[in-house]
C-alpha cells in the first residue's frame, strides 16, 4: 500500500470525499514526487488536521445557512398566516378531522418558537466559534444539534401551516387553502436545502478534544450558571408580555400556556440544545 493510498483511506475515514479529497491527493502526489513521502507526515494525523478545520468551517457555515433559510421561511410563514386569517381565524372545533386540526394548531404555536430559540442558540454558538480554526468535536456536535433542531421544528411549522389550512378549509376560501398548501411546500425548500448543507457538514469529523459547553458560554452577557433559574426568569418575562398583549379573558390563559410551553421545552430539549448540562 503506497503512502497516497494510506492518505486516501485516512481522508475517507474522517469524511473527506469527492473533489476535496481529490485535490489533497493530487497536491500530495506532486509534493511526494518532488520530495519523497518520508517528510510528508503521518497520513492519519494529516487527514485529521484537514478534517478538524473543514468540520469547523462547514458546521459553522451550515448554522448561518440554516438561520438564513429559516429567516426566509419565517417571513413567508408570517405573510402566509396573515393572508390565511384575513377574514378571521377558524373555530377550533370546525376541523374536518379534529385531532389532526388540534395537533396542527398546537404545532403552529409551539414549533416556530422552538425553531427560533434553537436557531438563535445555533447562531450564538456559530458566532462564538467564528475565529476558531479547529473547534472541539463536542462543540461542533452541539452546534449541529441546535441547527438541526431549528430546521426540524421550522419544517414542522410549515407542514402544520398547510395541514391547518386544509383541515380547517371550511373557514377559509379556496384560494386561501390552496395558497397555504402550496406556500407551505414552497417554503420548506430553503429549509430542506439548509438541512442538506447541515448533513454534509456532519460527514466530516473533527477529532479535537474538549467540552461542548452550554448556553452560558454563548451568551454575550454573564449570567449565574443556574439554568433553571434563567428558564423561570424567561418564563416570567414572557408571561408578563402575554398577559399585557391580550385582554383580561385571554391574557391569563395565554400566559399559562406559554409558560407551560417554555418550561416543557426546556425540560425536554434542554440537554440536547446545551441549555443545561
Amino acid at each position, binding site marked *: 500500500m503506497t503512502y497516497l493510498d494510506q492518505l486516501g483511506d485516512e481522508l475517507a475515514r474522517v469524511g473527506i470525499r469527492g473533489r476535496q479529497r481529490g*485535490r*489533497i491527493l*493530487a*497536491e*500530495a*502526489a*506532486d*509534493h511526494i*514526487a*518532488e*520530495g519523497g513521502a518520508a*517528510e*510528508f*507526515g*503521518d497520513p492519519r*494525523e*494529516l487527514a485529521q*488536521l*484537514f478534517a478538524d*478545520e473543514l468540520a469547523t*468551517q462547514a458546521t459553522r457555515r451550515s448554522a448561518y445557512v440554516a438561520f438564513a433559510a429559516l429567516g426566509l421561511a419565517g417571513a413567508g410563514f408570517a405573510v402566509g398566516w396573515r393572508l390565511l386569517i384575513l377574514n378571521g381565524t377558524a373555530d377550533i372545533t370546525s376541523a374536518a378531522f379534529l385531532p389532526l386540526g388540534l395537533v396542527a394548531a398546537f404545532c403552529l404555536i409551539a414549533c416556530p418558537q422552538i425553531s427560533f430559540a434553537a436557531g438563535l442558540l445555533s447562531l450564538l454558538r456559530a458566532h462564538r466559534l467564528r475565529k476558531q*480554526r479547529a473547534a472541539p468535536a463536542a462543540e461542533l456536535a452541539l452546534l449541529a444539534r441546535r441547527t438541526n433542531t431549528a430546521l426540524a421544528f421550522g419544517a414542522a411549522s410549515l407542514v402544520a401551516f398547510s395541514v391547518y389550512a386544509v383541515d380547517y378549509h371550511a373557514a377559509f376560501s379556496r384560494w386561501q387553502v390552496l395558497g397555504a398548501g402550496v406556500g407551505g411546500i414552497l417554503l420548506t425548500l430553503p429549509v430542506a436545502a439548509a438541512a442538506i448543507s447541515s448533513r454534509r457538514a456532519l460527514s466530516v469529523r473533527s477529532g479535537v478534544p474538549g467540552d461542548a459547553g452550554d448556553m452560558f458560554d454563548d451568551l454575550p452577557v454573564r449570567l449565574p450558571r443556574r439554568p433553571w433559574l434563567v428558564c423561570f426568569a424567561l418564563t416570567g418575562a414572557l408571561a408578563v408580555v402575554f398577559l399585557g398583549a391580550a385582554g383580561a379573558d385571554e391574557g391569563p390563559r395565554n400566559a399559562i400556556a406559554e409558560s407551560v410551553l417554555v418550561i416543557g421545552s426546556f425540560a425536554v430539549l434542554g440537554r440536547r440544545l446545551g441549555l443545561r448540562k
Partner: protein
Amino acid sequence: MKAELLKGHLDSLVLAALAVEPAHGYGIIARLRDRSRDVFRLAEGTVYPTLHRLERDGLVKSRWTAASGRRRRVYRITRSGREALAVRRLEWKQFSRAVEAVLA
C-alpha cells in the same frame, strides 16, 4: 525547532514565503527551510491545511498548472493577504520585542 512552536506562526510564515513570488506547496516548504537556515522543519504535509484555509479566507489564490507531466497547484498571495501579512509583521515585531525585553 519544535513543531508546536511553529504551528502558531505557520499562516504568517506561509504568507511571507508567498509574498516573494508564487509557489507550490513543496516550493513553500523549501523556501521556509532556506530562509530559516534549516531551523524550520515540520511535517511537510501540514503546510497544505494551512494553504487551503488561507485560500478559504481569501488571503491566497491558487490554480492548477502542469509541471514535468504532473498536475501542480500553484499559490499566490492576494492583496488581502499582503495586508494581513503587514499587520502580522507589525504584531510580531511588538511581540518579539516584548519577549526579548523580558527574557533578556
